[in-house]
C-alpha cells in the first residue's frame, strides 16, 4: 500500500464477487473509502467481516437499474461524505447465446444492467463530481469482446461495445469539469463464473493468451487503481486492454 488513493471516496458497483470485489479491496488498500454496491441485501456482509480491508469498505445495497434507488444511494454518499471522487461501473451480466437463439429477456437484462444502468450511474456521479474543483474519475468495465467480438456473444459484446462508446463520449463532454472517464477491458478472467467452464475449451482459449494464463481479478483491479489515482490525471477517453496480450 502506498496511499495512492488516500482520502478519496469511491463507489464500486457489483462488488459482491469476482472482479468487483477485487477492485473494492484494491482501492481500499490504497487508502480510499469505498462504498461497495450489490443488489442483494446482506450479500457483502460475510466477505466484509473477513476482509482485512473491511475498515475502508462500506456496503451500499441498491439495484442499479432502479433510478430512485440510485438517486437515494448518491444522496446518502453526499450526506455522509459530501463528495465522490471515483465511480467504478463494474456490475454486469453475461448470457452467451448463439445467433438464432437469443432470448429477448436476456438481451433486455444485459442492456438494462450493462448499458442503461451504467449511464444512470455515470449521470448521477458526474453531477456530484462536477461540483468539485478536483472533478473525479469514472471507470467503466468493458470487455475485450466489446472491441473484437466473439462467437456466441453477440448481445454481450454489443453491450460492452456500447460501454466503450459511451466512455469516449462522456470523456469529451465531462473533460471541462475535470472529470476523467476511462474504460478497463478485461480479457478472459478467472472468476467464480469460470468454474463450470469446459476445461478443454478453456485450454484452447488460454493458448491464445501470450502471457499463458487467465487474468486474475487483481490484474483488473490494479488497472482500476491507476485510473482512479492522480497517476492518470491527464488520461481520459481511453480503453485499457488487460488481457495478457491475447491473440483472438
Amino acid at each position, binding site marked *: 500500500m502506498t496511499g495512492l488513493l488516500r482520502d478519496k471516496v469511491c463507489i464500486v458497483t457489483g462488488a459482491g464477487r469476482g472482479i468487483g470485489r477485487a477492485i473494492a479491496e484494491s482501492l481500499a488498500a490504497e487508502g480510499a473509502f469505498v462504498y461497495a454496491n450489490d443488489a442483494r441485501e446482506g450479500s457483502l456482509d460475510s466477505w466484509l467481516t473477513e476482509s482485512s480491508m473491511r475498515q475502508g469498505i462500506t456496503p451500499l445495497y441498491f439495484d442499479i437499474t432502479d*433510478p*430512485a434507488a440510485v*438517486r437515494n444511494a*448518491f*444522496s446518502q454518499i*453526499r*450526506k455522509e461524505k459530501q463528495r465522490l471522487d471515483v465511480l467504478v461501473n463494474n456490475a454486469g451480466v453475461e448470457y452467451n447465446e448463439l445467433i438464432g437463439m437469443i432470448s429477448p429477456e436476456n438481451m433486455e437484462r444485459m442492456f438494462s444492467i450493462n448499458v442503461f444502468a451504467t449511464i*444512470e450511474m455515470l*449521470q*448521477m456521479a458526474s*453531477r456530484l463530481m*462536477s*461540483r468539485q474543483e478536483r472533478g473525479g474519475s469514472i471507470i467503466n468495465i468493458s470487455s475485450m469482446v466489446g472491441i473484437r467480438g466473439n462467437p456466441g456473444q453477440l448481445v454481450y459484446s454489443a453491450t460492452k461495445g456500447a460501454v466503450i462508446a459511451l466512455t469516449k463520449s462522456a470523456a469529451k463532454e465531462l473533460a471541462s469539469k475535470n472529470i476523467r472517464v476511462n474504460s478497463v477491458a478485461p480479457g478472459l478472467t478467472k472468476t467464480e463464473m469460470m468454474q463450470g467452464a469446459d476445461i478443454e475449451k478453456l485450454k484452447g482459449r488460454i493458448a491464445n493468451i501470450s502471457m499463458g494464463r487467465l487474468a486474475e481479478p487483481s490484474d483488473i483491479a490494479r488497472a482500476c487503481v491507476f485510473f482512479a489515482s492522480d497517476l492518470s490525471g491527464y488520461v481520459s477517453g481511453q480503453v485499457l486492454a488487460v488481457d495478457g496480450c491475447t491473440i483472438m
Partner: protein
Amino acid sequence: MNNRQKYNKIFTTLFNINDSQLNKDFTFNNVENWDSIAHLSLITELEDTFNVLFEIEDILSFGSYENGMRILEKYKISFNDF
C-alpha cells in the same frame, strides 16, 4: 432567510433580475437567457442550497419558477414558511 427567499435569491442572482420579475410567466420558454447551461447551474444551486438530489425527470420538467417550487415540495421543502 426562509425557503422562498432562498429560492428567489438563486433565481435573481443567476438571471440577474429583481424579485418582482419572478412570477408564473418566468419560464424556460419565456426567459431568453434560461438556456441549458443556465438550467444546469440552477439545478446545482438548488440542490446545494436545499440539500436535495433531483431525479432526472424532475430536472427535465423543471421548466418554470412556479413549477420548481412544486418539485421541491416533493423533496419535503416547504414554501409556507413566510
